[in-house]
């Protein structure tokens, strides 16, 4: 197994972040005082059981949500109390998201879903090029309902990378997929991390996926349990679960 380049400078940093939110009548402590960083070029896998707070953490460092307490830094920029406008620009310019349920716009074709992002990004690829990266060049004019789950997730990845983001945040990207399709999606993420050098964070409840990471972070019950560098990186295609 070839070792990937040593992780670079710190891109994103969460310092002692906590999040409490209300769901119905209940207060949920989703994240409790977590400190974690994301370094340039690395592929971090954040593992945890369902409800461990990993999605919430990802949302907070991705500027989708704000922390109840603690700080979030993007390079030298403090995002902790950033306005909605600043967070929107942060997401627009620097972050690509991939979600468990793909979150494609059902009324737009694959190409149009990608165009949704390229139209507002500063230096995007063409939608066609982005779809080629995920090997969907021949399904560009299909609507989400006409694509398989794996294909939909690849469109979502194409949409996320089309803006050439610095950071790619993936929330259970294989969660809704079968094993075989899941592996294909992981391969795409791996390739993007390698070839484009995009800093990538993948969160999953599926522990074996952590084998492909350069760094593995584990969360339990809203707390960080471990944060270790993976010395035995395996290719996505070698992973099984």
């Amino acid at each position, binding site marked *: 197994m070839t070792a990937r380049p040593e992780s670079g400078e710190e891109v994103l940093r969460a310092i002692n972040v906590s999040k409490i*939110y209300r769901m119905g009548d209940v207060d949920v402590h989703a994240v409790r005082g977590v400190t974690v960083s994301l370094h340039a070029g690395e592929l971090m896998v954040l593992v945890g059981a369902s409800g461990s707070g990993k999605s919430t953490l990802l949302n907070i460092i991705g500027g989708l949500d704000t922390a109840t307490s603690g700080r979030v830094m993007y390079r030298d920029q403090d995002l902790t109390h950033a306005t909605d406008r600043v967070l929107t620009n942060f997401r*627009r310019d620097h972050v690509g998201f991939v979600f468990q349920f793909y979150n494609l*716009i059902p009324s737009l074709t694959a190409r149009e879903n990608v165009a949704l992002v390229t139209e507002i990004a500063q230096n995007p690829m063409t939608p066609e090029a982005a779809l080629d990266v995920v090997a969907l060049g021949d399904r560009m004019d299909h609507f989400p309902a006409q694509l398989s789950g794996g294909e939909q997730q690849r469109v979502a990845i194409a949409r996320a990378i089309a803006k050439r983001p610095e950071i790619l945040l993936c929330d259970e990207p294989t969660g809704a997929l079968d094993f075989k399709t899941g592996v294909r999606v992981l391969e795409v993420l791996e390739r993007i991390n390698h070839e484009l050098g995009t800093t990538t964070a993948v969160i999953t409840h599926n522990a074996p996926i952590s084998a492909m990471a350069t760094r593995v972070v584990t969360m339990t019950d809203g707390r960080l349990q471990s944060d270790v560098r993976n010395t035995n990186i395996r290719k996505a295609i070698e992973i099984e679960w």
Partner: protein
Amino acid sequence: MVSALDRKLLRDLGQVRGQVLTICLVVATGITGFIAMQGAYQTLQQTRADYYREYRFPEVFASARRAPNRVIDELRTLPGVSLVATRVVEPVLLPGGNGNRPASGQIVTISDHERQPLNRIHLTRGRLPDPVRSDEAVLLEHYAETHDIHVGDHIPVVINGTLQNLHITGLGMSPEFVLVVGGDMLSSTPGSHAVLWMRYSSIAPAFDMDGAFNDIAITLQPGASTGAVLSAVDRVLDPYGGFPAFARNKHTSDHFIESELAGLQAQVTIIPLIFLSVAAFLLNTVLGRIVELQRPQVATLKAVGYSNASIGLHFLKLVSVIVLLGAALGITLGAALGDPLLSLYRPYFRFPDLKAELQPITVVISIAISFLAAAVGAFVSVRKIVALAPAEAMRPAAPPNYRGGGAATWTEYLVGPAGQMVLREVTRRPGRVIASVIGISLAVAIMIIGRFASDSIGHLLDLQYGRVMQEDITVALSDPIPAADIDTFAAMPGVRHVEAINELPVRISYGSRSRDVAVQGWPEERRLRRLLNRDGAAMMMPSRGVVLSDILAERLMVSVGDTVDIEMMRGDRRTVQVAVSGVVRDMIGMQGYMRSADMFVFTDGIETITTLLLDVRPGAIAAVEDRLRDIPSVAGVSSPAEARTNFEEQQGGMMLGMSLVLAFFASIIAIGIVYNNARIVLSTRRRDLASMRVLGFRRSEISTVLLGELALQVVCALPLGMWLGKQATSALLATDPENFRMPAVISLQTYVFAALVTVIAAAISGFLVRRKLDSLDLIAVLKTRS
């Protein structure tokens, strides 16, 4: 190039096309009404202004018994007076024949040589009379058309008791006769009163008016006080038997146009307001639902970097497209309806050129108010979108919080589990249910508004012709006749009974308030006219004092027992103090009633008669009318029964058309609301309903859940709508009660009609949605993420 977001918008619209269509129609209906009515309003107002200006409609009117021409100079020098035009105006009778009833009319003189300074004639055919010919006249076009009279025809006219054949040299109209009312308003039909313009020198001698006049028209200098001029004119004309001068707003023709315009203006505001409120409400519910369904999409847009403003704008665009489509349709229809709407006025209002014109500003306003409806409708949803944190939007909404439940409640025993679901949904979203109920009730109200006019007029006719007027023939006399002459009429074959009424022009004052009205003297023994009290029941004429119309009593602020001053407006203008002995409900005008004998104080004991009421043997009416034609002092003959039939025939078609149009409009609202609600309930409840089907519920059973709520809304909306309709009718009737008070009467048929149309519209919507329900793909629905 169309952006991806705009493509989403177009496809989203396609997804909800049924709802888009219904909302479009509601907007279109409101805008159609606005454009057509506002267009008619502006056209009428502009045409009137142009006509008045071009043909010199005066600002002050007065008349006298006989004033010598030298008085003209005195009038001209009054402060504030600009132009003075004098003439002779005399009533005449057109005996009819050829199946035509005898008609009332008037001769109006025009200057021999110079052009009319005021009240100019607009000649539509022929020429003005030759000043040296005494038998030539220009006839009012409206009358000529109604009676099929043409230029060159000769028509018989009784002029001051002498039958003459007049040669019609031309047809014309004038701003003072846009609407001609002869006699009482109900019995006069459009075009039934003749106006004959004749040269002064050719006709004045016939009325002993050579070198004199009895009618004055005045225009004012800019800034002059109308009140001061009126008083000054009254003073000048007093020695010549002057009648109180009045300003343009009291002129009959102008007054009716003004009332019509006021009515139109009220409708221009109310009707589009109702429709656009409903549209805003529908947009609010539909957009609210779209936003709820698109929570993950909104979140994704936010996640990939779209700003709140651009997402808000996206949804605002969605509703704007809907209202713009509706507005475009409405503007097209409204413009097309402009002329048909004006044509409803043409039988009544005669202008030289009444052509609908759509002003660009009206179109701009209509688009602006459509957008306003869109903005109001989108406001809540867009605010929700902005408030939504992107991460929160990724999670499905928390399950709705239902209250109650636990052990089976009494309602469950009553309505079963499906009914219970309906009740819980209703109590959980009372705002939406209440808004729907109000919306549907507006539809009910619109239908009531559409039909109440015909109900009210029907009631008015019942009262006036059925309860008040009991005579077979009403005879108006050109000049008062002595009481003894009544025998001539009583002796006519076929006449069973005659009663006489003496009407005097008076000014009734109480404190600082006064009104110029007529007092009618009624015979001691009478059975052909009734007084009705405020409850509509017949009442006795009190043995003393004066009985006043309720509105007159209100305006003078007097009640029974107070003493008013009654000033005779003719002759020596003597003033007598009379106690108010009763108040009656009058629908038309304001007047006083006294016993004839009590009126001798004004006439020095001489009893004169101005109107006769004839009770005629059935079958003899036509023969009696024929004989009446030959009596010179008869100015007009009318029959209450025939007047009523005429009125109903004329108004019937128009009223029916109007009520059908409004029923159609209202159905659009009802369908729009019920259909949209049903679709929303369906989309909210898809999973619940599919789960119930999977569990073994039949289609008819799950329909109860879906349609039960709609049925409940309709049931609640019906009584509310009826109440709203009743309130709206009172508001629409509030025009000028001094002239005409229409009772706000709504018949049972109208209520039933409104309820029926609403229920049918609701049933159609229910049926359309039920079909969707039947094609529900159970597996697909259950697989979809909620």
